[in-house]
């Protein structure tokens, strides 16, 4: 079997194993979902009441794509905590004693995590619909919006993989990822328009890829940007900017994570 076919075949076997765990321990999925659902409710009904919205739209329509973006990024953290957990429990050693491609464990991990994210997005869509969020574009555009969210999350998974392999402890990983991801997803156009931010924060927010993926899905779902939207380049070309980030993240972190996998396990 050629190297990449083995990586895919073995990756599929390992992805399957990870998905069995998602099925057997549904608490994990519930844990991933509780905070975004709570966020939707809190933001729509508490903060949303104080945010001015033009007639004919709603804050919910603005907010839900932002919540989607934040949720799939948190969904991608499972890649890091899962790898750290396997490392701690010695299962990575078992894998490494088998004749599989060095990238197979990581390919399998990132694949199962993006599939789990599909399920997460579906549940979030239902939640969004309940609070009044609607898609007003064609099904094809809507699909493109979801694809872009999942692609970006997949790219994030590779970053998480590297961090998870470096810290080697699921608890430490979860603390670190929480501390980093919260500001990244808040200093963005996810919850409020960036126009009112202080200049420095606004520039950061405009170039933050989380803003771009949010903006791109708003555009593709036909949801409002509020406050006239930003005229920064990344947000004017949100889909393209998201694509560039995704490709670059995978191109950089896939080889780094694979190298770290070979190395850290060999300690």
């Amino acid at each position: 079997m050629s190297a990449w076919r083995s990586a895919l075949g073995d990756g599929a076997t390992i992805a399957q194993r990870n998905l069995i765990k998602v099925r057997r321990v549904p608490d994990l999925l519930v844990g991933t979902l509780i905070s975004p659902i709570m966020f939707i409710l809190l933001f729509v009904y508490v903060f949303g009441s104080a945010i001015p919205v033009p007639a004919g739209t709603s804050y919910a329509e603005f907010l839900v794509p932002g919540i989607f973006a934040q949720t799939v990024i948190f969904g991608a953290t499972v890649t890091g905590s899962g790898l750290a957990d396997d490392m701690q429990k010695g299962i990575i050693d078992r894998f490494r004693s088998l004749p599989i491609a060095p990238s197979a464990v990581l390919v399998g991990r990132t694949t199962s995590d993006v599939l789990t994210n599909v399920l997460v997005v579906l549940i979030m869509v239902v939640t969004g619909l309940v609070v009044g969020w609607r898609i007003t574009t064609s099904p094809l555009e809507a699909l493109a919006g979801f694809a872009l969210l999942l692609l970006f999350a997949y790219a994030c998974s590779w970053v998480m993989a590297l961090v998870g392999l470096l810290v080697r402890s699921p608890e430490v990983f979860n603390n670190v990822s929480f501390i980093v991801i919260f500001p990244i997803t808040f200093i963005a156009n996810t919850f409020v328009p960036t126009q009112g931010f202080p200049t420095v924060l606004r520039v950061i927010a405009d170039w933050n890829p989380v803003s771009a993926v949010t903006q791109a899905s708003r555009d593709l779902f036909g949801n409002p940007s509020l406050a006239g939207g930003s005229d920064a380049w990344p947000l004017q070309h949100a889909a393209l900017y998201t694509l560039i980030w995704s490709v670059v993240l995978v191109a950089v972190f896939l080889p780094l994570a694979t190298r770290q996998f070979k190395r850290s396990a060999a300690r």
Partner: protein
Amino acid sequence: MADAVRARGLVKTYGRAGRGGGVTTALDGVDLDVPEGTVLGLLGPNGAGKTTTVRILTTLLVPDAGEAEVAGVDVLRDPQEVRRRIGVSGQYAAVDEYLTGFENLRMVGKLYHQGSRRASERARELLELFSLSDAADRPVKGYSGGMRRRLDLAGALVNDPPVLFLDEPTTGLDPRSRADMWELLQGMVRGGTTVVLTTQYLEEADLLADDIIVIDHGRAIARGTSDQLKAQVGGERVELVVDDATHLDEVRSLLAGVAVGAVEVEPHTRRLTAPVEGGAAVLVRLLAQLEERGVHLSDAGTRRPTMDDVFLTLTGKRTDEPSGTSDQKSGVTA
């Protein structure tokens, strides 16, 4: 006979100089030769370097120096090919808690590229062999320690490997499972499998291993068959248990006079042991002398040296004492 495993000058140091925390030399030049179809037992106290040796030979760890060949393949140059030819069971069971026993073994089979059907068949076979059929379809989370251990050992056999590496395979098993495991291994060895195993149980090495290497502080301090090792530490032992602990010193000096090696004293059991030449005759003379002095014994006898004696003589430690704590070879001179 060709060697299934060959290693020369294995060195492994943990921790980097200048990084704080100090440097541990886990292996300091170990050589191994394991002829095909034989069992090598690696024996040594905690921290001796047994696991490190196994991890290097199974491609999990890269040595700082030295070379190794397993099943005719260079471990450093072609680790992937080595992995195709070996089965590994590490010191701690590496099984997936959320999968069932069956799913664990089937996954391993698939990762050996056995194909889904064959992998499932083989998984069932092994579950049967390791008496895990009843628990086969329960998640491993609910398995006992011994069951996990057995599942992990089954994982090493999935691909019917010609060379097996087992790191303390029977630690944590009850006597019954241990005996089953021994029988299973003996059967495999008769079938031509080569086995490298580490163990804390001298009895296990005595029973299973054709050759034994005693490792201490990362070095092979003795090697040979169990008979050779026993011969190396001298012939028969005289063993005396005194009634009254106040007589221990007196009896010790008496024994020292006839012993050909160190006299070992265990104060809490009031037991004294010494290697002698001409066992029974020496014992009779000793008994007469003790009678004269009015020292009462609750037990006396002679016995052949055990692997425990070998270990104690060579390392100055019992098997359950770690490498680092006691002064090296403190028990040998007395």
